[in-house]
C-alpha cells in the first residue's frame, strides 16, 4: 500500500529530523505513542519504587530503607502509577484509537492535543525534580512523603517543611490541566467527527466508554485543581482552608480530594473496560453480548461514581446518615459493574476462543477485576471497613482493581494494537511468558496482602515488629513482586525485539471488526485515504459478511 511506503521513507531520514518530527508532531497517533512511551518509562520508575518497598518489607525490623525514604517511595509510587502511568497510557490509547475507530483524520484540536501531552510529561518531570532538591545534596532527596492523597494537615508548612509537597502539588496540577485538555478534545472529537453514518449508539464500546470517561474527567479534575490551589494558597499566601489551627478543616481536603479521587478510579477503569470490550468479542469471534446494556451500564457507572466518594472516609467519623448513604451508593455501583462482567462472560459463551496474548490479558482481567470488585463490596460494608480500611487488605483491593483491572487491560491493549501502530506482531511466546509471570506474580504479590491486612497490618508502615504473623505473607508478596518484575522485563524485551524483527502484521491481523483495522498498519498520517461510511457497530463485519451484516439486527 502506498501509505505504508510513506511510513518507511520517513524512517530513512536522519535521527535529528525524526526526533524533531516527534517533538513537534500534532498527529494524534504519534501523540498517542508518545503518551504510551511516557507511561512505560514511568512504569519502570514506579515499578522500581514498588520493588524497593517490597524489599524493605521482606523481614520484620528491616533497616534497608529508612522511614523517610520509605515514605517518599510509597508516595511517589502511588502518585506515579496513577498520574503518570495509568492516566497517560489511557490517554495514549484513546488518542491513538478514537479517531481511527470513528473514522476521522485527527482529533478536533490537534495542537491542543500536543499541549496536553507535553503538560502531562512536564508534570511528571516536576514531580521527579523533587528528588534533586533540598536535602538531595547531602541526603537522600526530598521527594514528597505525604502519601498520594496528601491528607491535610500533613501537607501544611508546619508538618511538611521544605518544598517537597509543592512538587507533588504542581506536578499533579500541571498534568491534571493536561488531562483536562485531553478530555475536552476527546469529547469534541467523538461528538462531532464520527464517520458518515456512524450514530452515537454505533460507536465501538471503547469510544463510548472514553466519552463517558472524558465527561468524568471534566467534572472530577477541576475540584482537584481547585483543592490544590487552595493548598498552595495555604502554604504561601497565609490562607486557612486546611489550617486546623485557624478554623480550617482537615476533612474538607478529604471531601475535595475524594470527590476527584473516586471518579478517578473509574476514569482509570472505564478505558480498561473499553479495551476488554474490544478484545473479548474479537477473540471469541462473537459480537459483544448486550451492547446497549453495556453502554447504559457505563453511563450509570459514570453517574453513580460521582456520589460515592465518602466511602473513603468511613473511619473519619462522619454523620451516620452520610455513612449509610455512601455505603448504599457504593453497593449500588456494583450493579452496573456486575452487568459488565456478566456481559463479557456471556460473550465468551458459544464462541471460539482464541487464546492469543491479548485475550489472555483480557481473561486475566476478568478474573482479577472480579476479585477486586468483590473485595470492594466487603469494603463498602461500613463496619467491616472500620476493621480493614487503611490496612493491607485495602492495598490488596485497589491493586486488584487498578493493576489486575486497569493495567492488565492496558497490557492486553498493547498486544492487541501494537501490530496496528507498528506493522509488526509482538512475539506470542514472549507474550505468553509475560502474561503468565504477571498473572502468577500478581496473585502472589497481592493475594497474601488480603491476609496480612486481616491480620492487622496497616498500610504505609516502613517496618513491622516480629511475631505478628505478617512475615510470611510479606515474603510471598515480595517474591511475587520480583516475578512480576521479570514479567515486565520480558515485555520490554518483547517490545524491542518485535519492533526490530517481528513478524509483519498486515492491516488486519486479528480479523477484527472495527474501523482502525480498515487502514494500513501503521496508518498514514491522514488515517484513511477515503473516509469510510458506516452502517452498523461492526463495519468490518458487514464488509466481511455481506450475506449476514450486522445492520440487519440493530
Amino acid at each position, binding site marked *: 500500500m502506498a501509505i505504508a511506503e510513506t511510513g518507511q521513507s520517513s524512517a530513512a531520514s536522519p535521527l535529528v529530523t525524526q526526533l524533531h518530527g516527534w517533538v513537534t508532531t500534532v498527529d494524534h497517533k504519534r501523540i498517542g505513542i508518545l503518551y504510551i512511551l511516557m507511561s512505560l518509562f514511568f512504569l519502570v520508575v514506579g515499578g522500581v519504587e514498588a520493588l524497593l518497598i517490597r524489599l524493605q518489607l521482606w523481614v520484620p525490623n528491616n533497616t534497608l530503607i529508612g522511614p*523517610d525514604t520509605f*515514605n517518599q517511595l510509597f508516595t511517589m509510587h502511588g502518585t506515579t502509577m496513577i498520574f503518570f502511568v495509568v492516566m497517560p497510557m489511557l490517554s495514549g490509547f484513546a488518542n491513538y484509537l478514537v479517531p481511527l475507530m470513528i473514522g476521522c483524520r485527527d482529533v478536533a484540536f490537534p495542537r491542543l492535543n500536543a499541549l496536553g501531552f507535553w503538560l502531562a510529561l512536564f508534570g511528571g518531570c516536576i514531580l521527579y525534580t523533587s528528588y534533586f532538591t533540598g536535602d538531595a545534596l547531602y541526603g537522600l532527596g526530598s521527594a514528597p*512523603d505525604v502519601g498520594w492523597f496528601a*491528607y491535610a494537615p500533613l501537607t501544611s508548612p508546619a*508538618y511538611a517543611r521544605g518544598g517537597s509537597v509543592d512538587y507533588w502539588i504542581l506536578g499533579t496540577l500541571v498534568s491534571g490541566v493536561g488531562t483536562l485538555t485531553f478530555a475536552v478534545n476527546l469529547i469534541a472529537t467523538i461528538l462531532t467527527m464520527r464517520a458518515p453514518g456512524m450514530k452515537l449508539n454505533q460507536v465501538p464500546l471503547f469510544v463510548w466508554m472514553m466519552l463517558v470517561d472524558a465527561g468524568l474527567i471534566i467534572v472530577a479534575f477541576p475540584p482537584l485543581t481547585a483543592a490544590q490551589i487552595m493548598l498552595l494558597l495555604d502554604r504561601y499566601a497565609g490562607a486557612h482552608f486546611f489550617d*486546623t*489551627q485557624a478554623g480550617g478543616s*482537615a*476533612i474538607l481536603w478529604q471531601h475535595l480530594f475524594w470527590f476527584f479521587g473516586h471518579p478517578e478510579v473509574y476514569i482509570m477503569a472505564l478505558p480498561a473496560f473499553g479495551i476488554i470490550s474490544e478484545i473479548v468479542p474479537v477473540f*471469541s469471534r*462473537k*459480537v459483544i*453480548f*448486550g*451492547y446497549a446494556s453495556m453502554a447504559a451500564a457505563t453511563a450509570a457507572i459514570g453517574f453513580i461514581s460521582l456520589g460515592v466518594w465518602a466511602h473513603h472516609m468511613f*473511619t473519619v*467519623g462522619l454523620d*451516620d446518615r452520610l*455513612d*449509610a448513604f455512601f*455505603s448504599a451508593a457504593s453497593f449500588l455501583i456494583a*450493579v452496573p459493574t*456486575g*452487568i459488565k462482567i*456478566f456481559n463479557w*462472560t*456471556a460473550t*465468551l*459463551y*458459544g*464462541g*471460539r*476462543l482464541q*487464546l492469543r496474548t491479548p485475550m489472555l490479558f483480557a*481473561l486475566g482481567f*476478568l478474573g482479577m477485576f*472480579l476479585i477486586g470488585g*468483590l*473485595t470492594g*463490596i*466487603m469494603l*463498602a*460494608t*461500613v*463496619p*467491616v*471497613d*472500620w*476493621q480493614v*480500611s*487503611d*490496612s493491607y487488605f485495602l492495598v490488596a483491593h485497589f491493586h486488584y482493581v487498578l493493576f489486575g483491572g486497569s493495567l492488565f487491560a492496558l497490557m492486553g491493549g498493547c498486544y492487541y494494537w501494537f501490530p496496528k501502530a507498528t506493522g509488526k506482531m509482538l512475539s506470542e511466546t514472549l507474550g505468553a511468558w509475560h502474561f503468565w509471570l504477571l498473572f502468577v506474580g500478581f496473585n502472589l504479590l497481592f493475594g497474601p496482602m488480603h491476609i496480612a491486612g486481616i*491480620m*492487622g497490618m*496497616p498500610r*504505609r*508502615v*516502613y517496618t513491622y515488629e516480629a511475631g505478628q504473623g505478617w512475615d*510470611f505473607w510479606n515474603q*510471598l508478596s515480595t517474591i511475587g513482586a520480583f516475578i512480576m518484575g521479570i514479567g515486565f522485563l520480558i515485555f520490554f524485551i518483547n517490545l524491542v525485539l518485535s519492533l526490530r524483527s517481528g513478524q509483519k502484521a498486515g492491516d488486519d491481523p486479528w480479523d477484527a471488526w472495527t474501523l482502525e483495522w480498515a487502514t494500513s498498519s501503521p496508518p498514514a498520517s491522514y488515517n484513511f485515504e477515503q473516509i469510510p461510511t458506516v452502517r452498523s457497530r461492526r463495519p468490518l463485519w458487514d464488509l466481511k459478511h455481506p450475506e449476514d451484516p450486522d445492520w440487519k439486527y440493530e
Partner: protein
Amino acid sequence: MRSLRKGRFRQAYWGMMRWPLALALVALSPLVLVAQTPEMFDPASPDAIEIRELFYLVLAITTLIFVLVGGALAYFIYRFRDPPGAPRDDSEPPQIYGSQPIEIAWTLAPTLIVLVLSLVVIRSVIAMRSEPPTEGTLRVRAVGHQWWWEFEYPEFGFTTANELVIPTSDADAPTPVYLQLESADVIHSFWVPKLAGKTDLVPAKTNRMRLEANAAGIYEGRCAEYCGTQHAKMLIRVTAVSPAEFEKWVADQQRSAAVAASVDAGRQIFMDQACANCHTIRGEPAIGKFGPDLTHLMSRHTIASGVLENNRTNLADWLTDPDQAKPGSRMPNMRLSPTEVKQLVDYLMTLE
C-alpha cells in the same frame, strides 16, 4: 451414550473446578504453615464480634458470587477455547447480540443482594455508632501526637501515655469505656482489632468511640492513618483489668511522683535540661505537655509508643540516641554524657 455424557460431564466438571481448586490449594497450603487466627476474627468485645459476623456474611455472599461467576468464566474458557492444533476453520460461531430477559435478570439479582446488604449495614452502623456516654461511664480523652498517644482520665485527674488501661466489661451488664478522640497535630487513627474497628483522630474535630473488653488481657493495636515519619512505630496497648484492679491502678496513678533523695543528680538533670519543657512529672516543676507524661513511667511496660520494652538498658539507649530505635522521633538527642544518662535513668526508674 450415557457413559459418554457422563465422561463429558466429568471432563467439564474438572475443567470448571481445575483453576479454583488449584488456586484454593495454593492459597490454603501456607495456612497450614502459619496457622494463626487473625485478631479481628478472634474478637473480645461485642462490637468486634458484630463486625466479625458481618464480615462472615459478606464473605459468604461474595464467595458465592465468586464461585458462580468465576466458575462460569473458567468453564466457558475451558469449554469454548479453540483447541490448539485443531483444523483451521474460518467460519464464525453464531452471533448472539444479547437477550433482554437474561440481562434484566442479572440486573435485578445483584440489585436485590445490594439492597439487602445496604439494609443490614445501615442497621449495624446505627447499632454500633456509640451513643453519648451516660452518667457514671468511664471516659478517656485519647489525643494522637506524632508519634505517641496521650490518654487523659478527666474524672480521675491524671494523664498517661501509650498504654490505655480499662476495666473489663461484663457481657451481661456491659460497662463500656468511651474514648474521646482528638489530635494534637495531624490525622491519626485508633485501631485495636480485637476490640473495635478504627476511628480517626482528626485535628479540630472530636470523635467518639466505644471500647469494651470482655476478658482481661493485653490488646495490641496501632495507628492506622499515615501520620508522618514514624507512623509505623505508633503502637497502642490496651490493658483490660478487673474493676477492682482498675481501681487500684487509678489510685496509684493519682499519686504525685515519688521523690527519692538518692537520685537527686538525675532529677536535677531532668529539670535543668530541656526534658522538663516537654514532659510532665506531677508534683515536680516539670509541666511540659509536648511529650508523654512521665509521672508513673515505670508503671508502663513499654517506652517510645510500644517500640521498646521499658527497662534500664532500653531507657539508657533511648536517652542516648532516640533515632536508633525510632528515627525521626520528636524526642531530641540531648547529647548527654554516659554518666548523665545513667543518673537520669536512675531517676526515671524511681517514677513508679
